């Protein structure tokens, strides 16, 4: 088993470097919840089906990430505060290639 490090900047601008397991079938949204970096009920609302944008984040490092699925692309096309580097955390499965990844959580929708 290997843990990787991921830097997550929360919605208050505080950055956290957390250890993420690659062998627990976890995604980035779940990682944020596991470390309680965003209040429960404000992230992962749909449970990880790419059907809400509550886990939207901005990718700050230049990691090569898996391509977006149609679902993710469709959801981001209707999300708010979207930027070029927006992704849905729930669609980013934690893998060894993500070691050193830096992301910032997008603001909560009003």
């Amino acid at each position, binding site marked *: 088993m290997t843990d990787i490090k991921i830097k997550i900047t929360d919605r208050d601008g505080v950055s956290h470097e957390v250890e993420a397991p690659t062998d627990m079938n976890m995604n980035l949204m779940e990682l944020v919840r596991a470390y309680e970096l965003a209040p429960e009920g404000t992230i992962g609302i749909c449970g990880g*089906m790419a*059907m809400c944008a509550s886990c939207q984040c901005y990718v700050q490092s230049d990691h090569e990430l898996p391509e977006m699925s149609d679902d993710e692309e469709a959801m981001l096309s209707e999300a708010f505060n979207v930027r070029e580097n927006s992704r849905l955390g729930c669609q980013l499965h934690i893998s060894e290639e993500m070691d050193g990844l830096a992301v910032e959580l997008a603001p909560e929708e009003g």
Partner: protein
Amino acid sequence: MIKTDILIIGAGPTGLFAVFEAGLLKLKCHLIDALPQPGGQCSELYPKKPIYDIPGFPEVLAGDLVDNLMEQIKPFQPGFTLGERAETIEKLEDGTFIVTTSKGTKHHAPIVAIAGGLGSFEPRKPPLEDIAKYEDKGVAYMIKDPEVYRNKKVVIAGGGDSALDWSIFLADVASEVTLVHRRNEFRGALDSVEKVQHLKDIGKINLVTPGEVVGLQGEDTLKSVIIRKTTNAAEDMMLETDFFIPLFGLSPKLGPIGDWGLEIEKNAIKVDNALDYQTNIPGIYAIGDVNTYPGKLKLILCGFHEATLMCQSAYQRIFPDKKYVMKYTTVGGVTGFDGSKKESPKAVVKAIN
């Protein structure tokens, strides 16, 4: 005034199953839900998605699960107040409650069970400056009366079914319909996508893709919207319109329940999980995804369990002097309020001579 034994707020799977368990105890239920149909998230968000962890169902579509629950509770004739959000609660001197909805419908019950999931579904509002100012003055998040738009100019934003369907519908009503979406692809029924394509081709829908409404202009009422087609703000275009209707789907908000004096932790209602899922206000219970306690899991199957124990406790509150002995449905059958009776067939006893 609607009167019932257990008033259930939220008609998702947990709330629906509570009707069954209450029915076995001869308690009547009435459900309130902000959505126009029962089923909660299962119907609204993912009716066509499979669920694999409902005991006894290796695989069931969320929409089918709701249909099954509706069938299961039918004998207990639950009442429904749909399309209305529970707004206020009042505790009367005798310990019973009156819950009033957004449309003023009043419900009276000795027990209130909040099965509100993640809250009531409300339209997602784009974060545009001044959008609140123009609400009901040109900006609407849902279409209640299409006649309002007759011979008016309408701009619709969104890429899902409701944006497509309303664009199609209003193409024959409004004087001008513009559909703005951030990309060329729409996620909606294929049939709707093709219809919009056709209406665009014959000039009845003005399609702006990729595009995004980034600003609103007007005085007392909305006069125009600013549409951004490229990343270059200098190329923004202004479009005169009477109405702007952003249709970006719904998202759940805890809403007014958060102001009922209930103990809230992590956007959920704290309950006594050692006993009966009662909240800090005696007589008000919280079951399913809306509650929290140490070790809480937001699973439908956990909601079913919580609903069952809640009903037992509700029964004791309503009938403090009665002693209830739990009976298996296999033994006691299911006797509906509608006169129906289901029971296991009697064994055939026949002598061999």
